């Protein structure tokens, strides 16, 4: 592993990669700071720019954008009291009161130290957890892969715990769309609706771009006045950098605990930064000797949420890289980007493409260091740029990028049409309270699930009942147990919360 890490570090540290990552971190921070532009959308919009690059540069750029966007959410959380991304909800609790007390710069720098540090801890966890997990995943056969995709689909329980029927229906809808084109086993041409262009299936990235970007842009276009930001004025202060550093490292346990919470919550399917930052905030408050100061401008609150949400980025990469299961929507986009680069997410990434995988992990480490430098040197300027971009220009420009991006993947107009139709369907379903996550998840996991199911069935033909193969292998049994826990836990949590509300 040491040799691979060294080679990966050398590969990442080229001038070209550093420039791409610098662009990625800065662009991600700008996008993350804009309420309405999520990390998922930022990553989706950049994918088409990266697939002409070599895999290491492309993946490093995407990783940098993702890290930058999650961190960027802190700017608007602190200065406008509106989280730029859902991962920064907890940052508003203490960041905004700090800004109102004239400590806006201190809050931003504290968030910068905590975010970069959280991301670095997350990367270390990613590196040391992925390798053994990938070794286990190499023992998986088709039945295990089928169950792994079912495990991935349990994310639906977390994403749509408030409306499980719609979540499950969305997931099944996504699975059906994934079957358009040639069957993975058998080679049947299916569900093309008579359109020859669909024989190759729907382009995953086009659908993802449409689903995550178009609905949000249409919503902003119809609510332009709500997009105007009223930021708290940030004044320069003496010794703010040292104070911010001290805010983070004066209580290292809070910082380290929050980062570890973030990384491990990120590993869980469906539970991304939006959950991690609140869990870490809650734990920080619980462990504090002065819990009453939380919510009034306590920097420890900012440290906890920012360290946690940035660590989820790397945590979410563990199931993606080792098992090929995207645990969160941005990871789903990175899954598509890996496929575009000709790489198959899963344990193979650690054998046949180990040099790229390790370089990607090292690039996340470098991106977090870069995020620290950009945040300290240009944080305030980036937020000024953000407040200068009017939504009337932003919305058409992003639609322009979605068209350009979806076309350039295969130079195919059908992909653009699919992207736009996907966007309109996504908008309609979102209005009807369907979460886009389960649909996208079904779309990604469909082919893997089908291949696992059919190949497993073929393997089981030697038995009297072929289906028993799915329930008798040790790893399959363990996976079924994990699935029951993973699907049942959010339902139990939701029912418990309803019960407690009813009691009160």
């Amino acid at each position, binding site marked *: 592993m040491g040799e691979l890490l060294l080679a990966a570090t050398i590969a990442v540290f080229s001038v070209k990669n550093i420039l791409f990552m610098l662009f990625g971190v800065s662009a991600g921070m700008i996008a993350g700071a804009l309420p309405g532009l999520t990390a998922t959308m930022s990553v989706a919009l950049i994918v088409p720019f990266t697939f002409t690059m070599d895999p290491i540069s492309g993946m490093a750029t995407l990783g940098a954008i993702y890290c930058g966007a999650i961190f960027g959410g802190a700017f608007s959380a602190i200065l406008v009291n509106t989280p730029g991304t859902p991962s920064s909800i907890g940052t508003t609790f203490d960041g905004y009161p700090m800004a109102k007390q004239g400590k806006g710069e201190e809050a931003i720098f504290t968030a910068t130290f905590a975010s970069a540090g959280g991301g670095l801890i997350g990367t270390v966890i990613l590196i040391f957890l992925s390798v053994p997990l990938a070794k286990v995943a190499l023992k998986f056969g088709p039945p295990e892969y089928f169950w792994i995709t079912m495990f991935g689909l349990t994310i639906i329980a977390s994403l749509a715990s408030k409306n499980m029927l719609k979540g499950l229906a969305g997931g099944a*809808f996504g*699975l059906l769309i994934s079957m358009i084109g040639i069957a993975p086993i058998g*080679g049947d041409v299916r569900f093309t609706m008579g359109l020859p262009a669909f024989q190759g299936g729907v382009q995953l990235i086009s659908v993802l771009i449409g689903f995550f970007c178009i609905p949000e842009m249409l919503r902003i276009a119809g609510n332009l006045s709500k997009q105007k930001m009223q930021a708290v004025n940030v004044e320069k202060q003496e010794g703010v950098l040292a104070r911010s550093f001290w805010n983070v490292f004066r209580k290292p346990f809070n910082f380290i605990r929050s980062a570890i919470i973030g990384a491990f919550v990120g590993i869980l399917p469906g539970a991304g930064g939006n959950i991690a930052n609140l869990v870490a905030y809650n734990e920080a408050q619980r462990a504090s000797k002065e819990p009453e100061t939380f919510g009034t401008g306590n920097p420890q609150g900012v440290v906890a949420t920012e360290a946690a949400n940035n660590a989820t980025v790397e945590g979410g990469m563990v199931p993606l890289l080792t098992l090929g299961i995207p645990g969160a929507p941005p990871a789903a986009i990175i899954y598509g980007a890996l496929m575009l680069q000709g790489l198959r997410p899963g344990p193979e990434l650690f054998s046949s493409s180990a040099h790229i995988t390790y370089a990607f992990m090292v690039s996340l480490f470098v991106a977090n260091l870069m995020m620290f430098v950009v945040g300290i040197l240009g944080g305030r300027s980036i937020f000024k740029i953000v407040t200068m971009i009017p939504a009337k220009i932003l919305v058409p420009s992003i639609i322009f*990028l979605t068209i350009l991006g979806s076309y350039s993947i295969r130079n195919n107009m059908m992909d653009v049409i699919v992207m736009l139709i996907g966007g309109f369907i996504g908008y309609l*379903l979102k209005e009807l309270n369907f979460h886009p996550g389960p649909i996208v998840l079904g779309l990604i996991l469909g082919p893997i699930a089908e291949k696992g199911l059919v190949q497993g069935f073929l393997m089981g033909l030697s038995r009297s009942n072929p289906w028993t193969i799915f329930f008798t292998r040790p790893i399959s049994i363990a996976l079924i147990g994990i699935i029951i826990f993973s699907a049942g836990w959010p339902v139990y949590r939701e029912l418990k919360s309803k019960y407690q509300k009813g009691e009160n």
Partner: protein
Amino acid sequence: MLKKGGAYNTDIIGGMIMILSSLLFYSQIGNFTRFGLIFPKAIIIILLILGIGLMIKAKYKPHYADIFEMEEMSKMLLISAIGLAWVLLLDVIGFAVTSFFALSLAIYALEEKRNMKTLFKDFLIGGSEVALFYTVFSRLLLVPLPEGIFF
């Protein structure tokens, strides 16, 4: 009840969409091999059951929501229409020219005050943006963008 006080029963509409989708996919089942049929058939049945489940929920525990509720619906529709025309004309007229007009008009459509000055400004912004991305994609990334009648 589909509508209650301006809010729509999203379970009924969602359930109907899911049932119709499952029927559409079912109608597309042809002479598939056994292995090409196992998974889709199962998912179609599951989707149909979930659609029916939503319809039942719509009767006993409905979820009502104000759908398509926004400050300026006209602007959203205008952007959707421009987006659709943009995509449909891209291959016919050409990438750069279509994008120039569509992008500039979309920015203009979202202006609070529309006059000759903003129109000129928006075409200038649209033109610069299209020129930049056209150059990056066609010259640097060597993506063959649709040419159509113009370019």
